[in-house]
């Protein structure tokens, strides 16, 4: 089935089999947050070291399905070394990619408006685009992202 191949792209399976940045940083000093998907039991623990406005290290713990695990792994690879500001821009783009379609579960008949999304800015994260055809899996893909937002929320602003 074509949609299924879209969902389980090679790069996603690769991140699932060999997750990047696995583990937990000592917290403190690392910022730490736990995420949880009550529907399927997926859990994620995100720890981030932020120094001088830059994400100098990030580690991902927990367990879950290939989508939640690979999304977390790709996220860690994508934000590590970035400034918090740049990371937040990436988060925003990724979330909008997902949320347009998440809305399928919520709005009434109106079909969700397609907004132009800068896929190039997402790099390999764009591989997660296939998820949007599977509304129930979107929560898997966004779990670690929401958890990162939570962790960064603890930053003094």
């Amino acid at each position: 089935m074509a949609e299924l191949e879209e969902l389980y792209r090679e790069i996603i399976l690769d991140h699932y089999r060999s997750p990047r940045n696995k583990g937990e940083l000592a917290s403190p000093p690392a910022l730490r947050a736990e995420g949880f998907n009550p529907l399927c039991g997926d859990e994620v623990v995100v720890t981030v070291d932020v120094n001088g406005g830059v994400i100098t290290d990030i580690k991902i713990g927990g367990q879950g399905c290939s989508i939640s695990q690979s999304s977390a792994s790709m996220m860690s690879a994508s934000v590590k070394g970035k400034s918090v500001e740049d990371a937040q821009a990436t988060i925003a783009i990724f979330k909008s990619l997902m949320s347009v379609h998440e809305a399928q579960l919520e709005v009434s008949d109106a079909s969700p408006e397609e907004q132009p999304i800068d896929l190039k800015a997402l790099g390999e994260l764009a591989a997660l685009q296939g998820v949007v055809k599977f509304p129930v899996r979107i929560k898997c893909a966004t779990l670690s992202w929401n958890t990162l937002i939570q962790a960064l929320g603890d930053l003094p602003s």
Partner: protein
Amino acid sequence: MSKTFDVAKIKKDFPLLERTVHDRPIIYLDSGASSLQPHVVIDAMSHYYATTHANVHRGVYSTAEEATILFERSRQVVGAFLGAVHPAEEIVFTKNTTESINLLANSWGATNLGPGDAVVLSIMEHHANIVPWQMLSARLGFEIRWITVDSEGFLILDDLDALLEGAKLLSITAMSNVLGTINPIRELAARAHAAGALIHVDGAQSVPHLGTNVVADDLDFLSFSGHKVLGPTGIGVLWGRRELLAAMPPFLGGGGMILDVKTDGFLAADPPQRFEAGTPPIAEAIGLSEAIRYIDTIGIDEIRSHELHLTTTALDALAGRFGDSLTVHGPGPGAHRGGVISFTLEGVHAHDMAQILDSVGVCVRPGHHCAKPLMRFLGVPATARASFGLYNDEHDIEVLLEGIDQAAKLFT
């Protein structure tokens, strides 16, 4: 956006109206107890069972996903109908108005009420908006205070501020299911809030027949039932303001309302799931949203005008034909009343009235209409109640009068 209201066409949408009773066409005048369902509602549920049924929320396969989407979209449709701002979080599906009010009492009430507190009700409440508070009051020891009604059937609001003093909640119907009185909800909400109380509105009678806007009226909670609003049995709604629901503990415990369960305790999910333990009324939610879509295509304001016209016509005709021998319990004709007409005919008990009306095909309900405190207050043991829906017309009123005539003849 005025729509032409074509009652002959509407009648065709309701299959039950094709049937006969004692060889006469059925004349359904009991929408106050339960409405009929249009084809589209019945078909939406059959179609759901035949093509899509699966348990919601926990499946990833196609039908489970489709069922979940249909179910969650129903919240949106219901929310839009009520003018709710955050339907995805504010619309709780229950089994009927009665459960909605019990939920409110046992969740919000049990955490906010105690000795020295008060809840204000009106004497015209349905038992659904009385007994849950009595049960809770027996447990927690708060006071219940009563707004009474005048001889025409209007709430006596002169001493409302005194009644509200120190009260935490005003829980009141938007429209009496016995008298037809429409209560001034916006004013009541403002006065409750001024006194520091919240307001819950029993919308079982108003939501199906009048326009509802929980934001414009500044409400805190509102309840209604599917089966009175052209929808199925087995479903009701509690709407609550997001912040209020978020602060309330769960009522029923079980699957679907948790984030986590361990042997030593559980963690509750966010609203509305927090209040929806167990497999929800899935087909019923789909049927309810179809009912609301149907109402939307006709227009709730158009429905209201039509029913108001019927009510006025019927009240005038009853007075003209039966004079003082027939008493209508409730306000005279006008915009302050809905399409519920409770009456008694001298010398004919309500039960007999309903029986004789049935013989000419007319469905009306006799009895206390689950409002015994009001009946006692009025000093009437039972009334016969004719209540209108969008599918009624003037001919229905004529047959009603014909039946009352027969009752009058039989008993004199």
